[in-house]
């Protein structure tokens, strides 16, 4: 059947017409910037001219840009947050869904950090963590001088200070997600386990966590994306990437290349590399998930 005949057949083209606005919107907001970015990554913009530069930006970024390399390593270090998020979110969610006193109060207050703006959280934590900040003052007052460090000023500690801030601000999302997941588990399973004499830990490891598998998968993928692509504001407010690039991340490097060094082509190339990296991580994650589901 040729195309004209197909067009004449309403049943065939109607669905495509329905989704056409969405497709066009998708092209405009997603594919167009992506392809434009890819296109730009092959050019060098200098003195008002676009000069074709081939793969040289990629070559430079992969082989010679020490700041980008450092940023990539910092991003990888920050991935340590993912298991922390996972463990703490499940733990808090389980505890909050237990029949404990003031449960509603906990459920309400736990969300507070998440509704505070990232900029405000960054400012608060910069006050808490600086050398003469509240945390060090408390440590000094309780005689724990040994633990007084320059959390933001030390190149070895700054990234952990950054992690602490991100965990504090982002954890509630995970907790809420797992509370929802737990509330969807059939209570009869717990009742059956209770009859069989299962204790709290056995419930957790043999019922709750396996039942949350799909939520866990989503949460891990989401957090990997957060770490690679959505933490710019934390870094910008808290440390600006310092000291000595100890907290510079790929997003910040892209921003600095584009808006401080005016290397739009190189910034575009790094943005493409970041996109590819996230894509690979997410793809692998889905692949693993699929295999796990098939095994089940």
């Amino acid at each position, binding site marked *: 059947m040729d195309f004209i005949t197909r067009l004449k057949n309403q049943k065939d083209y109607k669905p495509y017409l329905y989704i056409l606005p969405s497709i066009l919107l998708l092209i405009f907001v997603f594919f167009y910037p992506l392809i434009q970015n890819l296109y730009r990554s092959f050019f060098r913009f200098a003195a008002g001219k676009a000069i074709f530069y081939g793969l040289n930006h990629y070559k430079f970024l992969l082989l010679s840009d020490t700041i980008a390399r450092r940023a990539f390593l910092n991003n990888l270090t920050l991935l340590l947050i993912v298991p922390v998020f996972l463990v703490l979110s499940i733990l808090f969610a389980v505890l909050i869904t237990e029949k404990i006193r003031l449960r509603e109060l906990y459920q309400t207050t736990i969300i507070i950090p998440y509704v505070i703006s990232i900029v405000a959280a960054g400012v608060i934590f910069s006050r808490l963590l600086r*050398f003469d900040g509240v945390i060090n003052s408390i440590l000094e007052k309780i005689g724990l001088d040994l633990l007084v460090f320059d959390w933001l000023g030390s190149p070895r500690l700054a990234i952990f200070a950054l992690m602490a801030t991100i965990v504090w601000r982002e954890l509630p999302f995970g907790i809420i997600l797992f509370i929802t997941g737990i509330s969807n588990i059939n209570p009869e399973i717990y009742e059956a386990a209770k009859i069989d004499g299962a204790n709290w830990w056995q419930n957790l490891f043999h019922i709750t966590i396996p039942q949350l598998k799909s939520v866990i998968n989503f949460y891990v993928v989401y957090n990997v994306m957060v770490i690679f692509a959505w933490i710019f504001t934390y870094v910008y407010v808290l440390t600006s990437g310092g000291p000595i690039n100890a907290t510079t991340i790929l997003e910040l490097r892209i921003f600095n290349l584009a808006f401080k060094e005016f290397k739009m082509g190189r910034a575009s190339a790094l943005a493409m590399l970041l996109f590819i990296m996230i894509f690979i991580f997410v793809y692998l994650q889905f692949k693993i998930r699929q295999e796990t589901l098939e095994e089940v």
Partner: protein
Amino acid sequence: MKRFKRIAFGLPLLILAFMLFFNGGDEEGAGTAKDVAEKDIFAEPTELIFWWYGESESPGQIKYVERLCADYNKMHPNITVTQVNQGVDVLIPNFMAAYEAQSGPDIVCLWGGIYLLEWVWQGAIVPLNDYIDEEELSHWNGSKFSEYDGKIYGSDLEVHANFSIYWKDHFRDAGLDPNKPPLTWDDLVKYSAKLKAAGHAPYASGFSGGWGGVILADFMWNYLVDYHDIIKAVIGERHFDEPAFIEYWEKVDAYNKAGYFNKNAPSIDWTEGWNEWRAGKATFLSLPGQAALSFVDELGTDKVGYFPYPALSDKKVGWVWPMPHSITSWSKHKELAADFLKYFHAKENYSKMIDIMDARILPADDRFDPGIIQEPEHKKWYAKMAMDWMKQKGHNFLAESALPWAIIEKGLVIGGQALILGEFTPREAADNMEQAAVEWREQNPELLEHYKIWAANY
């Protein structure tokens, strides 16, 4: 079905290709100056859009800019100047978007020095010489800051000078004469030792965001090297690892190792260092004049003393920063924009600026007489000093204005942090700075050529 699928995928791709290749702004311009000059530029109702960074570096300035726009509108009722305060952090990203779209502001402030000239070299800014006569331009004494290849690309809304302030009480605690600030670097070191012994952190700074290192270079380099030596080091005719530059790193290193900066300096930003000083947690602070004067005004000269940065050599130096505003290449009202920029320098605005800004910023114009500021003493001192420094050639602009950002970032920001944290020796910091310059030259051959043309004037 296959064919249909091909078309279903092909059509969006075709649209995408069209969007990609037909996305440039048109080249429709404002016409030449001559064309425009022949018609009355004030006849038609016109809006000029004016982007700038707001008043975070200069409290109260929005009021002055609004007054300028309103007064200009009174003079030319058809012309409205809309000032858009973009804020320091977003002005450049937003301007870059405007440049890409070839649409946006008619007038923009891009800070001056290389910060501005990099945009000139991108073709985003037009010279003012095409619209303003040479006699008028000859009075603009900050124009060297925005000059390239014999053309002037900016009209200074204002100029500010930079100096240092100190707590007189701290001096008394340390047994120092509160009316005798340190005149030389050696004095500063000696005073700092006494202040530290008396329990005061001598010098307020902050290195977390990296600006602490840049600011120290701004103040100290003018004594150790000439402005054109910095320029020569950028283009490779001199080197950032020569003894004169190393001396800067050695002095900062020794001062830091003696524990004369506030203890939290590595974990706070430079402007947070101002708060440390304001809270009385450190004695000295070096900063832009308008902010320094606001501290002096707020706290009073019985509590706060002021002085130019201590001398590291016998060179006559100054620290001024004119604030040029420029016309964008895509503006359709270039001549009108130029007229508004010329209005910055109108004599009738001098007293307005002094009144509204309380003499914290000054007109960058040789027709301005600092004598109109009568009292108090510190404002007279400031205005006279700023005007004298403006006249000095070669040692008066801050060092950073001659440096491309890549060199500032790697050389002064990262290098400065590494030195303060003990990760770099002075020699390594100097080598790192030289490496930054080498990398910049290798990666920016076109900009280097422009830079060399600019350098020829220094």
